[in-house]
C-alpha cells in the first residue's frame, strides 16, 4: 500500500515566484526507505514541507495514508541538519517531547510517565546513548545530539519519518556510524522513511529507492531502485556493485550541472 503519493505536484513560493518544484509524481510504499538526492536548491526541503502539510502545493495533489494532505499532519517525525534539542531539557525529557504533544499520547502522558520514560530509555539505549539520559544537550557531542534528535523523531512511532540532511554537519566517521544506527533501527522495526540528502553513498547505502532531482525548478529525473541485499554491511559500500550504482546516479547529477551551465 502506498503511504505517500504525489500526483503532478508543483509548488511556487509567492504568486509570481519561481517554481520550486515542478510536476512531481512519486509514491512511497509503507515501510519503504526512500532517498531523495539532488544538487542544493533543487527543492528537496520543499518536498518535505509538502508531505508534512506545512505548506500547500500550488498545483497537484499530495496524499498521506490515502487522504489528501491539507494542513499540518499529526505525528510525522522530523529531524534536521541541526539537532534542535531544547537546552533546558535533559536528553530523556527532550526525546519525550512528542509524547506531550501528539494527540494519541498527550492525555496519558502524566498518568503513564514512568512507562514512557522506560520506552525513552530503551530507545536511547538502542542508539548507544545509554547513560546520557540525564545529561543536557550541550554536554553531548554533535553525533550524539543527532542520535537524540532522531530518537525524538521516532519515539511516538510515527507513520512517516522525514530526515532532512540529518548527517550533513557531521564528520565522515560519525556519519557512517549514524548510517548504521539508522539502518539497525529500520531493520529491527521497519517504518517509512523519506531521507533528503546530497550524499549519494548515503542514499544508496540506506535506501530501497533513490530519486534524483534536477535543479531550478526541481523535477524528478530518475527513479532508481536499489536492490542490494539486506541487511547491508558497511563493507557493501566498497563493492563494485555499490560503486556502479553511485556512479550511475552521479552521472545524472553531472548532466544536470552541464545543462544548467
Amino acid at each position, binding site marked *: 500500500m502506498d503511504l505517500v503519493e504525489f500526483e503532478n505536484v508543483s509548488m511556487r513560493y509567492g504568486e509570481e515566484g519561481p517554481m520550486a518544484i515542478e510536476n512531481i509524481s512519486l509514491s512511497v510504499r509503507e515501510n519503504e526507505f526512500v532517498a531523495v538526492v539532488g544538487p542544493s536548491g533543487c527543492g528537496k526541503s520543499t518536498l518535505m*514541507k509538502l508531505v*508534512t*502539510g*506545512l505548506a500547500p502545493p500550488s498545483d497537484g495533489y499530495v496524499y498521506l495514508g490515502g487522504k489528501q494532505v491539507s494542513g*499540518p*499532519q*499529526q*505525528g*510525522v*517525525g*522530523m*529531524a*534536521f541538519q*541541526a539537532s*534542535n534539542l*531544547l*537546552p*533546558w531539557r535533559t536528553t530523556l525529557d527532550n526525546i519525550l*517531547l*512528542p509524547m*506531550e*504533544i*501528539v*494527540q494519541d499520547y498527550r492525555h496519558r502522558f502524566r498518568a503513564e510517565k514512568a512507562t514512557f520514560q522506560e520506552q525513552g530509555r530503551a530507545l536511547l539505549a538502542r542508539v548507544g546513548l545509554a547513560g546520557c539520559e540525564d545529561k*543536557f544537550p*550541550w554536554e553531548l557531542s554533535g553525533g550524539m545530539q543527532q542520535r537524540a534528535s532522531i530518537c*525524538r*523523531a521516532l519515539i*511516538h512511532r510515527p507513520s512517516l519519518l*522525514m530526515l532532512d540532511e540529518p548527517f550533513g554537519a557531521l564528520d565522515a566517521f560519525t556519519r557512517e556510524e549514524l548510517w548504521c544506527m539508522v539502518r539497525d533501527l529500520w531493520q529491527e522495526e521497519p517504518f517509512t522513511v523519506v531521507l533528503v540528502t546530497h550524499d549519494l553513498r548515503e542514499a544508496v547505502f540506506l535506501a530501497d529507492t533513490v530519486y534524483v532531482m534536477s535543479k531550478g525548478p526541481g523535477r524528478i529525473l530518475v527513479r532508481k531502485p536499489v536492490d542490494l541485499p539486506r541487511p547491508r554491511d558497511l563493507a557493501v559500500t566498497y563493492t563494485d556493485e555499490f560503486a556502479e550504482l553511485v556512479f550511475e546516479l552521479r552521472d545524472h547529477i553531472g548532466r544536470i550541472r552541464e545543462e544548467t551551465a
Partner: protein
Amino acid sequence: MTLLQRKRLLIKASPWILLVTLALLWELVCFAFSVPTYLFPAPTDIWASWLEYQGPIMKHATHTLFTTVAGFAIAVIFGVILGVLVGSSPLIYKAVYPLMVGFNSIPKVAFVPVLVVWFGIGTVPAILTAFLISFFPVVVNMATGLATMEPELQDVLRSLGASRLDILRKVALPRSMPYFFASLKVAITLAFVGSVISETVASNVGIGYLMISASSTMDMGLVFAGLVVIAIMGVVMYEMFAFVERRMTGWATRGSDPAF
C-alpha cells in the same frame, strides 16, 4: 592558597575593593581641595547625615521601595502579556511597535503632572510612573525572545500536531526566559528612576521628596544619603533577580560564569 583560589577570591571581592577605593578617593579630593559640605559632601559627611536622620530616611526609603516594587510588578505582568502578544503575532507586532516606541520616547517626567491632575499627588502617580518607565524593556525582550524561535523547531512541533498554545508553552516561553530575566534587571533599575522622579515632582513621602526638601535647605549630606540609599536598594533588587536568573536559566550560560 593556590593561585586559582586567590584569583577567585579577588573576583569575589573586586566590587567591594572598587567601592572602597572610590570612596577613599572621594574623601581625599574633598579633603585636599577643602570642598564645602553644602556643595559636595565627603563620604564621612554623608555617613554623619545618615546617623542623624536614620529614622526619617528609612521611613521614606520603605515607601519608595513599596511604590517601586508595585509599579515594577504591574510592569512585569503587563509587559509579559503584551510581549507574548507582540512576539507571537506578526500583525500585532507591526501594529503595536511604532506606537510603543513613540510612547517610550516621551520623557516620563513630563507626564507626571498629567498623572497628578488625574490621581492627585503621592503614591499613585509614583507607582504609575515606575510602571510606565519600566514596562518597555519587558515587552521588547519578551517579544524578541518569542520571535527569534528557530523555524525548523517550529516545523518539528507543527508536524507533531502541536497547537500554537503548545508551541508557546513547551518551547517559546521557556526559550525566552533568559531574555525575560535580562529585561527584569533593566526594568527594576528603571522603576526606581520612575518612582523617585515622581516623588521629587509631586509627593510628600518617599526618598525623592526627602531629597528635594533637603536640597531646599542646602542639606547636601542628607541629599546624598538619599541617593546612596536608592543606589543600595537598586543593587539589592538587581542581585535578587540575578540570583533567581542563575537558578532558573542556568542552561543558557551552561553552568559557567556569564562572561567571555
